[in-house]
């Protein structure tokens, strides 16, 4: 037992006031796709529109000032949350945009820059990447003639790092990997990878979509060079994501999108760029959403990421133990809690994940089914789809028990007919 009070926390999330599928209690086990939002976040976003709405960084009036304060205040909250410098935080639309921004900017880095990628260079990823941290690098490799290489995933769902010296070669420029797999729940060990990458002069880019919302992260201690996450998986609004980068690297990196707000000066034939982070934020940004994300991170801090993490691990243990007792269930990913998070994918013999998901939905249980935007990983696992339960602070033991019962009932439903 933990003394974490998920039931009280749920009361702060308006969505749990509704029911689904003919009056059933909502059992939301799909936070890996997107999290639900506490009232403070919804209010912060709405308050911005009601009281402070104006284009940030533009205009001399009071509202523009207040809007800018709110937006820049949110940037400060994000920076503190990551133990980063405020100018190292770039607001984007989501993690996908953060990673694409990086891939495009790196692709157009000047020849003299250490970040320049060219034919013969290597980009290293892993077999467990979400498409958002796979395709941008695959395409950058195609554009530049660089070679794409990856760490395979072993049968337990961990990265096989045994050939690290061969995978991260001297010509490697970029190592991009996920912190926690959105399918397997595996948390990747970073120290060895970062050490090797930095020894050969490569930068390390971390897809932290599934880690930032669930564990305390200090970018300085982690030692990575860039990090991306999405606001909407961290209790924040949709439409806002973050790219964090070391200031010297952001300074060296050319912009990706061009337009208003990102310039220093402009003539008819040329332009120079504002310093980071502004140079990466062309156009009027998603202001209310950034403010909402600030409120979300404050909320997470109030509850405490340690406590949230412990709670999730407690539930994960219960879920894995429960699933293991079902002889027809196969878990994809590590079974021990060592270096894993609260994302559990599994298969049930003779029931396709879509059908299982549909049955669970009829019981009010929301899970994700499919390939989870990690098609190559699914191939490696030898399945076309899995069922995934992903946990967060508002889940409680009864949610886990309902899922376990739902799986058993689905077996009766589809097997017994």
């Amino acid at each position, binding site marked *: 037992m933990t003394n974490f009070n998920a039931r009280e926390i749920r009361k702060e999330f308006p969505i749990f006031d509704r029911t689904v599928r003919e009056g059933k209690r909502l059992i939301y086990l799909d936070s890996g796709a997107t999290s639900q939002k506490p009232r403070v976040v919804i209010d912060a976003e709405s308050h911005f529109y009601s009281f402070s709405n104006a284009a940030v960084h533009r205009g001399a009036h009071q509202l523009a000032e207040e809007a800018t304060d709110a937006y820049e205040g949110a940037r400060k909250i994000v920076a503190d949350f990551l133990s980063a410098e405020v100018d190292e935080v770039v607001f984007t639309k989501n993690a996908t945009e953060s990673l694409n921004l990086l891939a495009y900017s790196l692709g157009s880095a000047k020849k003299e820059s250490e970040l320049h990628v060219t034919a013969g260079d290597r980009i290293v990823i892993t077999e467990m990447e979400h498409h958002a941290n796979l395709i941008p690098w695959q395409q950058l490799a195609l554009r530049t003639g660089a070679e794409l290489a990856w760490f395979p995933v072993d049968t337990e769902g961990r990265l096989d790092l045994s050939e690290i010296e061969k995978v991260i070669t001297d010509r490697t420029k970029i190592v991009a990997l996920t912190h926690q797999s959105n399918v397997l729940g595996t948390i990747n060990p970073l120290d060895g990878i970062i050490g090797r990458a930095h020894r050969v002069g490569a930068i390390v880019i971390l897809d932290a979509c599934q880690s930032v919302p669930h564990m305390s992260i200090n970018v300085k201690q982690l030692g990575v060079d860039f990090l991306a996450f999405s606001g909407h998986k961290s209790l924040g609004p949709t439409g806002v994501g973050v790219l964090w980068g070391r200031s010297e690297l952001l300074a060296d990196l050319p912009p990706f999108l061009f337009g208003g707000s990102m310039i220093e000066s402009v003539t008819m034939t040329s332009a120079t760029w504002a310093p980071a982070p502004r140079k990466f934020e062309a156009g009027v940004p998603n202001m209310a959403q950034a403010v909402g994300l600030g409120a979300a991170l404050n909320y997470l801090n109030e509850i405490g990421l340690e406590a949230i993490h412990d709670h999730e691990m407690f539930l994960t243990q219960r879920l894995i133990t429960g699933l293991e007792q079902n002889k027809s269930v196969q878990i994809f990913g590590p079974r021990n809690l060592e270096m894993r998070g609260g994302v559990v994918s599994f298969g049930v013999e003779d029931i396709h994940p*879509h*059908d299982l998901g*549909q049955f669970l939905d009829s019981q009010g249980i929301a899970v994700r*089914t499919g*390939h989870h935007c990690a*098609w190559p990983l699914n191939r490696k696992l030898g399945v076309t*789809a899995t069922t995934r339960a992903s946990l967060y602070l508002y889940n409680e033991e009864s949610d886990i028990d309902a899922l376990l019962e739902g799986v058993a009932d689905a077996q009766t439903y*589809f097997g017994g007919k």
Partner: protein
Amino acid sequence: MQLDNLYQEVILDHYKRPEFKKLSETFSVRVHHVNPSCGDEITLQLSLDMQGEIALTWDGIGCSISMASASVMAGLFNGKSLEQTAPIFEEFVTLMQSKGAATGDEDVLEDAVAFSGVSKYPARIKCALLAWMAFKDASVQVQGQVK
């Protein structure tokens, strides 16, 4: 249970004992379709004999809805001409797009009326249509060959 409207007996039967789910040695056209949102796959083979009668076999991996739908469709279309399949095809697509409002004409659809419940579940319509869209693709290709 509401779910029973979706998983009608006929569907689960076809899922467990699919018909024509074995790719033939010979064929005129082979197509492979995937549902990118869930990864379900179907391979469908089509030929027309001298009388223009359809010979259709298939194989695939997917949920009960997509696999049963392929099986039911194969049962309906085998031995018919392409012209004869057209109204069935249209009736089925219309049923799928009806958002639960239509029940489907049993005289036209036969076993395929069992999929009427699917149209209430937007995420599953693509499952039910996977084989049908593969068939459409194959029939266009096979007609191209005939000409």
